[in-house]
């Protein structure tokens, strides 16, 4: 190294010099180092939000591709493409271009299906991410803002879905549009005005596909992108939450640094998510629009269902009783208004405000960076189970005609199952979940106090049989464990505390020396191997204690 007196440690390689020149102008290194040093806690459930982010990336890429071919127009054309059964049929330019995309663009069908699958995955990842945040209490102060942004993004994702699957203008999407039109009309007082503003007149008009298109490809994605940016910015600023565990406090983050470990894993995950969407998009057919045919308001196919994430609204609409509310002067609030606008509005409002509601009810206004195990907050967990049961019951009812058909059950019976189910099942779910949480809590304490069940039965001199328990830590005079519960998982099986040696690696043949593994395990401060190295052996080579579990070494 040719060091000079003025600049020791100056770069000598070409790459190093370039980097130096770059930093001299842009001053990137402080920011870069801080970013690369940022610590991310390691838990699989923290990847759920990332999956949503990566599916959004796929949606942006594949969606942009689709716009090269899609014509969002309701102009009437006669199909002349290569799909024979529809040749000569009058249809909208939107449906025509969606068919052309599927049949006459090389790889177009693959891209369309990839886009649709990524959309399903996007919403699914958001929902599961939301459940993780909810059940672990990650939304508590100071993260209420990010929770609300998340709920808003979920609603936007649903709107993305609705405006997206309405675009091809096939029979199925047209049926969906018709119901959207009816929902708009059902809003009291302003319903007809809202409908005419959105559809530019009576159903169906000539504008709606074009308007949904611009909402789907520009308005909503732009808002979503901005909110994603804000969501991540706040996340970086507030830093990750983490589960309680050794060395983890409210004032630190324990994990791996962004670079290289976290970045490499995240990049790996991007490609895995991409790969799964590509596999689904190629191998699993979704929304074969050519089978539905062009939209005709006089036609419908049986089992017309929306994509899964709107299923709950379809279900609530099926279940709601025929209760129009009539006002004097011949004004009506249609029954359709309640299960669609009100149910959806109420569900998302309560969801969005939940952090504030919980803060109010519990009086817990402290800052929290450590997560909770669902069992430790039985009321919230039970409330969550209750909400989920309600939601799942609605979603199931959204397909009650298919269930009735496949299982040969009366359709009307299925409707009544749903109507009664949404009322009585959520409280049952609440009670059961609450009890399960308490049971799990008690079992954690029991193991901490009495130790792990070893499965070893011993007969005492008095003739009594007892099961030997392995304490997890120091015990008092009565043999009761003195560890207190710290909000972290309590080991419940002997293998989790080193009751068995780890397997020797190797698939066809061992690639480790068994002796090395044994030595490595003895070096660890726990487990059988470590215990045995200190055991006295009888002259015959057996342990002096007969191989029974012992007091743990402190």
């Amino acid at each position: 190294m040719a060091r000079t007196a003025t600049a020791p440690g100056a770069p000598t390689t070409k790459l190093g010099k370039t980097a130096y020149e770059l930093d001299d102008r842009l001053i990137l290194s402080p920011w870069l180092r801080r970013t690369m040093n940022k610590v991310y806690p390691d838990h699989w459930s923290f990847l759920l939000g990332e999956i949503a982010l990566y599916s959004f990336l796929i949606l942006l890429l594949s969606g942009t591709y689709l716009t090269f071919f899609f014509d969002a127009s309701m102009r009437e054309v006669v199909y002349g493409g290569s799909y024979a059964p529809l040749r000569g049929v009058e249809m909208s330019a939107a449906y025509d271009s969606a068919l052309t995309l599927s049949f006459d663009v090389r790889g177009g069908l693959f891209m369309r299906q990839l886009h649709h699958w990524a959309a399903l995955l996007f919403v699914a990842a958001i929902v599961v991410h939301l459940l993780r945040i909810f059940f672990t209490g990650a939304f508590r102060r100071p993260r209420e803002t990010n929770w609300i942004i998340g709920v808003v993004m979920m609603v936007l994702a649903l709107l993305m879905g609705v405006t997206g699957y309405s675009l091809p203008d096939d029979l199925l999407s047209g049926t969906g549009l018709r119901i959207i039109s009816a929902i708009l009309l059902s809003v009291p007082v302003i319903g007809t005005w809202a409908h005419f503003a959105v559809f530019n007149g009576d159903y169906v008009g000539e504008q709606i596909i074009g308007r949904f298109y611009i909402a789907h490809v520009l308005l909503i994605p732009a808002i979503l992108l901005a909110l994603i940016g804000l969501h991540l910015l706040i996340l970086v600023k507030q830093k990750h939450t983490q589960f309680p565990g050794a060395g983890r406090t409210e004032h630190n983050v324990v994990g791996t640094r962004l670079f290289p470990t976290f970045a490499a894993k995240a990049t790996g995950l991007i490609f895995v998510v991409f790969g799964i969407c590509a596999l689904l998009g190629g191998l699993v057919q979704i929304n074969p629009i050519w089978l539905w045919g062009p939209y005709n308001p006089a036609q419908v196919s049986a089992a017309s269902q929306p994509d899964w994430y709107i299923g709950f609204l379809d279900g609530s609409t099926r279940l709601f009783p025929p209760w129009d509310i009539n006002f004097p002067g011949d004004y009506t609030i249609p029954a359709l208004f309640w299960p669609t606008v009100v149910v959806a509005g109420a569900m998302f409002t309560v969801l969005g405000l939940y952090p504030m509601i919980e803060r109010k009810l519990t009086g817990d206004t402290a800052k929290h960076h450590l997560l909770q195990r669902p069992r430790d907050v039985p009321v919230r967990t039970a409330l969550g189970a209750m909400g989920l049961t309600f939601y799942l019951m609605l979603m199931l009812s959204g397909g009650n005609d298919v269930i009735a058909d496949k299982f040969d059950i009366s359709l009307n019976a299925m409707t009544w199952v749903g109507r009664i189910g949404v009322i009585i099942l959520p409280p049952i779910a609440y009670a059961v979940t609450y009890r399960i949480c308490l049971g799990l809590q008690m079992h954690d304490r029991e193991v901490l106090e009495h130790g792990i069940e070893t499965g070893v039965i011993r007969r005492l001199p008095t003739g009594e049989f007892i099961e030997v328990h392995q304490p997890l830590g120091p015990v008092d005079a009565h043999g009761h464990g003195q560890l207190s519960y710290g909000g972290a998982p309590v080991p419940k099986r002997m293998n989790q505390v080193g009751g068995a040696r780890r397997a020797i690696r190797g698939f066809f043949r061992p690639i480790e020396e068994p002796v090395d593994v044994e030595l490595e395990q003895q070096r660890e401060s726990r487990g059988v191997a470590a215990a045995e190295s200190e055991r006295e052996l009888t002259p015959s080579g057996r342990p002096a204690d007969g191989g029974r579990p012992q007091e743990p070494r402190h």
Partner: protein
Amino acid sequence: MSVRETRPGSTGGADVPDPLYGGPDDDYTPEQLAAMRRDELDRLGARYDGVEIVHVEPGPEPGSSLEKRAVRQVGLAFTLAGVFAFLFVVVYVGSGWFLPDWHWLITEKGWSALFTPLLGLFMGLSLGLLGIGLVLFTKKLLPHETAVQDKHDGSHFDRVTAGAQLVETFHNSGLARRKVITRSLLFLGGGVGLMLIMPLGGLIKNPNKGNPLGTTPWADGVRLVRNDGTPIRPGDQEPGSLETVFPAVPAGNSVHHADAATMLIRLRPEQLAADRPRTGQEDFGYGDYVAYSKICTHAGCPVSLYEQETSRILCPCHQSQFDVTQGAKPVFGPATRALPQLPIGVDDEGFFVARSDYIEAVGPTYWNRERI
């Protein structure tokens, strides 16, 4: 570095950084840094960012069979990812060139039916294996470190100083005293806000003008025609059958007249005997024929499934059921209103015609529907 500046615009003094300049560069001289090892520098930088690396589990021993196996696995994943990527390219480019044509005909079982699945399979395997390779590399070959980063809450100092700056500015502006400015600003704000949302008024259309919601093309003397445009005579349908009919007007069966579709039903004698039309609509049918709107009064789907044994019409969207022998009133499900009935008759040539438009609005209920 301290050069005396004499160029125009310079202060003429020595242009040297003031004491605030430098930060960490003042703590460590280049010589000190040059004397440190790379891993020491890494940890030093980390400590500067509030990160302590508490434990590093080194990767596998270089040259060990553990390492060799991990390298083989990662290499295999990456190689296969490349192979599948090239296969994708071959299928994409080669179809219709040296491979059979990719244009898919629904009846065909050959290459064209495999084209899309193969694209998905190869891209999925390629990207998936790339991801798996990366994860394997990170897990099996990189050192595993455990790092701890401090988490700082907001600083009191920052809040107080930033707040002071804001309040001081507000105070200096005198807006609290100079009411004319605040009030005129509020006034202006309201005006500009309203002005900017005004163009949205272009979206507003009066739904009550011309009554488009309450009317359909049906009118006195308009023939009932089938899907293919042919008119219908009373003898054409079997008892118990249902046919969807449209008004014989241009584009009668199209999205332009989305509410026009009507069901023409010929009742069986038993059904006719049990028929209880709605009051005032007893003469809307013609002989054993009745005609009801096909547009569901619930959410506007076409009600389509007619079970003539039970005289019920089912809407496949939300399972509302209507009884055609009781004036098509809803008997189950979420619909609240009966399907509107079309008054029908027969013209001079013996074909079915409407005698008027529907006497009530067709389709989903809305706020002022009863008034139309």
